[in-house]
């Protein structure tokens, strides 16, 4: 799990949940303490008034009549007391009826507050205190039923639980919305990168959160560097080839323009020299063209087949304008741009050039996405070109596939162009395959390239 958004989501939710649980327990505890202290302090007052109503007659004690509140007279009223002298229970309120309260052993001045079980399943808060009155050791236990308060407490807890759950859920939702909104600001970067891959953009937008800005800037910097480097090397190669070719052209003319009848030896030397010049020419052509190829994954301008193939065909038709060729094309209109523009133009241009050399009248060019069992295979492009020229013999087909691997084999028409085609297909991790065209009768070239 590597998503920052998920990590933050989980971390923040967990801490929020922990906070709420802690709040719950602390709240519970302090509410219990609060009610006990509150009821307890009232019981303290009741003990004091009980004590004043207590009359001591040598060894016996009695309560002054009329001094006691009536709640101690009604049975199971929820208000009870027990009075013990020297730890022997001598008096208890009428409300206790046939029950009693457990009296802990106490020294004078001691005070204990605890919860005990009362009659009829009542929960009692009991306060027990010991005094020394007129030489007697008197202990008083006073208790009050907590049931009514407990019902209130349960009610309150229920509301508290519901409200805090709603609060928790709202906070969680709010938090995930905030997170999503914050991370949404990164989405333009992602879509930029996608467009960059497709070659629709040359740099990433710098309108991004400051945390990723340095990264985006660095990527942009590298992109510019890469593009400049490619451009520089392409230009340098163009210049080199331009500089080399004029002198080479002169050599051509000197050698082919030799019209005097030379002696045998210099004639054969002349033929050798011509061969070497041709060889140099081919070497330069092939290696320079090869060096100019960008390959896939570059950040160069992408090839838009729908738009550029018709232009390319216009050029080919002009070059072969002395022949009336029909070039049919079928291009998948749903294709996005793919490959480096110059590479693809070179590939398809050479394929068309080749086909034009051999065709009688008709050439078919099909560019589509690879389809396997009626599913579109992503990142694979199919290029099929066929002509109605002479059909090619089996053994020639086999040699065509290997043609271009050795330079001196690439002399005739299928030569140099084919070796460049081979190089480009290799660069795009593709396959190339030659066979007889079933519809036109000439050569059919099938190429699949990987554009990811």
């Amino acid at each position, binding site marked *: 799990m590597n998503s920052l958004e998920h990590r933050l989501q989980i971390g923040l939710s967990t801490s929020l949940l922990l906070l709420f649980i802690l709040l719950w327990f602390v709240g519970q505890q302090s509410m219990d303490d609060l009610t006990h202290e509150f009821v307890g302090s009232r019981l303290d007052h009741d003990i004091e008034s009980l004590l004043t109503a207590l009359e001591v007659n040598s060894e016996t004690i009695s309560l002054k009549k009329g001094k006691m509140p009536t709640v101690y007279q009604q049975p199971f009223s929820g208000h009870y007391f027990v009075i013990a002298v020297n730890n022997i229970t001598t008096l208890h309120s009428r409300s206790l009826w046939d029950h009693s309260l457990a009296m802990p052993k106490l020294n004078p001045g001691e005070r204990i507050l605890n919860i005990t079980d009362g009659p009829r399943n009542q929960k009692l808060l009991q306060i027990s205190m010991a005094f020394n009155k007129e030489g007697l050791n008197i202990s008083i236990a006073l208790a009050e039923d907590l049931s009514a308060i407990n019902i209130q407490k349960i009610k309150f807890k229920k509301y508290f639980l519901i409200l805090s759950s709603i609060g928790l859920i709202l906070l969680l939702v709010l938090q995930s919305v905030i997170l999503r909104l914050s991370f949404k600001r990164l989405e333009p970067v992602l879509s930029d990168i996608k467009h960059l891959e497709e070659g629709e953009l040359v740099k990433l937008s710098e309108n991004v959160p400051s945390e990723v800005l340095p990264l985006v800037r660095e990527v942009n910097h590298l992109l510019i560097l890469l593009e400049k480097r490619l451009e520089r090397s392409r230009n340098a190669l*163009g210049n080199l*080839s*331009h*500089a*080399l*070719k*004029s002198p*080479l*052209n*002169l*050599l*051509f*003319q*000197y050698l*082919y*323009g030799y019209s005097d009848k030379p002696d045998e030896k210099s004639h054969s030397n002349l033929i050798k020299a011509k061969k070497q010049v041709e060889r140099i*020419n081919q070497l330069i052509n092939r290696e320079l*063209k090869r060096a*100019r190829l960008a390959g896939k994954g570059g950040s160069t301008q992408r090839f838009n087949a729908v738009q*550029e193939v018709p*232009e*390319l065909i*216009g*050029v080919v038709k*002009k*070059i072969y*304008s*002395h022949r009336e060729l029909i070039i049919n094309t079928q291009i998948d209109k749903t294709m996005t741009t793919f490959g480096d*523009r*110059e590479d693809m*133009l*070179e590939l*398809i*241009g*050479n394929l068309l050039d080749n086909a034009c050399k051999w065709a009688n009248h008709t050439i078919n060019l099909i560019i589509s996405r690879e389809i396997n069992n009626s599913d579109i295979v992503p990142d694979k492009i199919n290029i099929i070109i066929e002509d109605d020229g002479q059909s090619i013999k089996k053994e020639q087909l086999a040699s065509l596939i290997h043609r271009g691997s050795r330079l001196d084999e690439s002399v005739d028409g299928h030569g140099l162009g084919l070796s460049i085609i081979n190089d480009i297909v290799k660069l795009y991790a593709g396959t190339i395959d030659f066979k007889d065209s079933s519809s036109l009768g000439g050569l059919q070239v099938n190429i699949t390239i990987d554009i990811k």
Partner: protein
Amino acid sequence: MRLLLVEDDKELSQTLQKELSGKGFAVDVAENGIDAEFMGDEEPYDMVILDLGLPQRSGLEVLSNWRKKENNLPVIILTARDSWHERIDGFKAGADDYLGKPFHVEELVMRIQALLRRTHNKVGGSLQCGALKLDEEYQQLIIKDHETLQLTGTEFRLLRYFMLNPGKVLSKTRLTEHVYEQDFDKDSNLIEVYIRRLREKLGKERIVTRRGQGYIFMDTL
């Protein structure tokens, strides 16, 4: 046929000029883009052979400037930059043909002839008017497929221009401009001499004189 050869390599342009003259073309040479653009605008060339890598102004710029001014003279681009995307740029700028360096002169001549025929709306592989067929390779005339007539260099140039423009009134100045190089004396009456010679070979009725206007080459008799 008068050609403008734009090439900055002096040695290459000199040998090319010699070779093309041998093939019956009058060739002027420009060595930089600015001269080339001016000459292409001012002189009535039949075609331009344009190198792209030129000093002062690039060939592509020269070409697109001509096309902007609606100067539609036929242009063959001659360049070492012959990758397909560069060819597309060349044709987009308005080129009519594109030849990669290094090339054989025969290839260039073939393309010049083909483009000339194309721009004069002549189809097919050779120049033909009725029973007359011009053999551009050997600079001779073939009549009714069996009789051959040898032509001198100037006769060949003149006849080719006539055969490319049959039925049109061609003034003496125009003929001079398209048959000879730039520095040729336009007032001389050499053209009349050659027309007389052609009439001797083809028959008087082939080339009709329009007094005060010029000459018309008759396509059919």
